């Protein structure tokens, strides 16, 4: 069994379970303020300490995981849902006007890093978690479109696709029957990478106030709140940051592990 995959999937599973558990139970209600117990370092009652409103940081991290995971997951969904069909279509009509339009549109989106998209959306509609999803999701579209297209282009030159054309199958049918199943490995690996980038991006947007708004707990906001207090309450900055680091690390390790397991070329190399 692949070590990266086990370690990565384990880390990811911990945060997924924490997020799910938070719907049913958290150590302390995160909407309850407890000013008497504010800015307490880790103790038996509060394993990760409390913040400037006396809220339990462990509970905040558990609930914040929901925001991070939801935003990143939906953004990957948007990227895949639109990017993959566009990439398949571009490859099926390679060199044609459709290919040209799709690739130029991709170049255009690449010129707007997700933060710029978020800035534009926020400037007009205000900040929210939904806008963060849209900004990250839009940026994911060209990533998946390019990946799908380049994977599909090399498959279109293969003889089995020619055989399907000889059998009278059209471009759409070939794309779904022969191309898509052979690019899913690429997509799964890229999906975990974009998922982890999405978590980083959401944290960044929330940190500068362009993402989730209070009272929705989010890791990025927790870090923003802790910034002025970092000199005397380092635990407030430490634990949310570690949560981001470990989740992203877990997803990246899982991506690497999946690539090794799924790519038959690498598998042969290892033998």
């Amino acid at each position: 069994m692949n070590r990266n995959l086990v370690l990565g999937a384990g880390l990811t599973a911990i945060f997924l379970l924490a997020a799910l558990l938070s719907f049913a139970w958290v150590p302390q209600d995160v909407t309850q303020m407890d000013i008497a117990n504010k800015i307490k370092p880790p103790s038996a009652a509060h394993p990760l300490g409390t913040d400037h409103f006396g809220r339990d940081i462990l509970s905040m991290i558990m609930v914040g995981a929901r925001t991070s995971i939801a935003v990143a997951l939906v953004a990957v969904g948007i990227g895949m849902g639109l990017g993959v069909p566009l990439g398949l279509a571009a490859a099926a009509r390679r060199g044609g006007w459709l290919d040209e339009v799709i690739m130029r549109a991709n170049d255009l989106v690449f010129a707007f890093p997700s933060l710029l998209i978020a800035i534009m959306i926020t400037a007009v509609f205000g900040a929210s978690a939904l806008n963060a999803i849209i900004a990250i999701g839009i940026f994911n579209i060209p990533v998946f479109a390019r990946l799908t297209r380049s994977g599909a282009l090399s498959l279109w030159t293969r003889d089995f696709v020619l055989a399907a054309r000889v059998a009278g199958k059209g471009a759409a049918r070939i794309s779904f029957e022969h191309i898509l199943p052979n690019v899913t490995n690429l997509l799964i690996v890229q999906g975990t990478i974009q998922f982890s980038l999405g978590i980083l991006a959401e944290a960044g947007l929330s940190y500068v106030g362009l993402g989730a708004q209070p009272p929705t707990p989010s890791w990025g906001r927790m870090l923003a709140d802790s910034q002025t207090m970092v000199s005397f309450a380092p635990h407030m900055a430490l634990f949310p940051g570690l949560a981001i680091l470990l989740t992203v690390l877990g997803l990246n390790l899982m991506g690497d592990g999946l690539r090794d397991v799924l790519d038959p070329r690498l598998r042969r190399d290892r033998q």
Partner: protein
Amino acid sequence: MLRFIGKRLVSLVVTLWVASLVIFLSLEVVPGDPAAFMLGLNAQEDTLAALRDELGLNKGAVERYVDWVGGMLVGDFGTSYTYRTPVAQMVLDRVQVSLPLALYALTLSTLIAFPAGIWAAARRGKPADIAVMGVTQLGVAIPNFWFAMLMVLVFAINLRWFNAGGFAGWDAGFFAAMKSLTLPAIALALPQASILARVMRSSLLDTLNEDFVRTARAKGLTRGQALWRHALRNAMIPVLTIIGLQFAFLMAGAIIIENVFFLPGLGRLVFQAISARDLIVVESVVMLLVFAVVLVNFLVDLAYAAVDPRLRGRR
């Protein structure tokens, strides 16, 4: 060669043009009446009219777009509503912080990543490789603003080697200015260097498997000579692509990092403009950042041609 540059230039201009349309439409047309948007719900009708007049909002959208683009082409970015100063002047002040920061970070990341990536590839599977891969795995996963906060805690608050934030200004001397950009640049560079080192390593490993490296070895080159003379330049092509893409992320990342260190750069300007609902400033700064990203990618394309004779075409 000329044809290659010509084609790239055309695509650069088209991308910028479409980008300007997208920005204009989303910031000036989508919100409906920008004047009402900027002044908020309680604005008086006569203040609104005055603002519309000032911003030229009484003209049609097409005319406003042409004015905006035409103005930018001659360096006129309009006047900020909140600051009552020309946007061009504000941007110019801020670029003096943001651009050196991005270049500083890019230089650092390249200087770290190249040796690390080459070293790891040359020692594939050995402890050095495993160490580089482990460290870069962490570097990719770390949120840069959190890393920045930790560095402030350690190097500014505890060790007092650096200031916790703020910019000394270029008037204070080159080294003082660079010193205040150092922690931000490291924070920006670390994740980028990690990505770049990993790309460098895997690209080099791919190239080392190519037939022409085997040919070089058959000529009597050592493993090291084959790597430096034949594999490295071929491995640079994907690395260049990533450097180009990273520039976009550095610009974006700088917006966040400037907030950690209270640096008076473009990023701070954008956030001030958003909270003041100063659409003119947002519009111009976003356009400028897009221009920078597109320009860098154009330069990367030129670098491809410099590296790869196949792109230069037959003579």
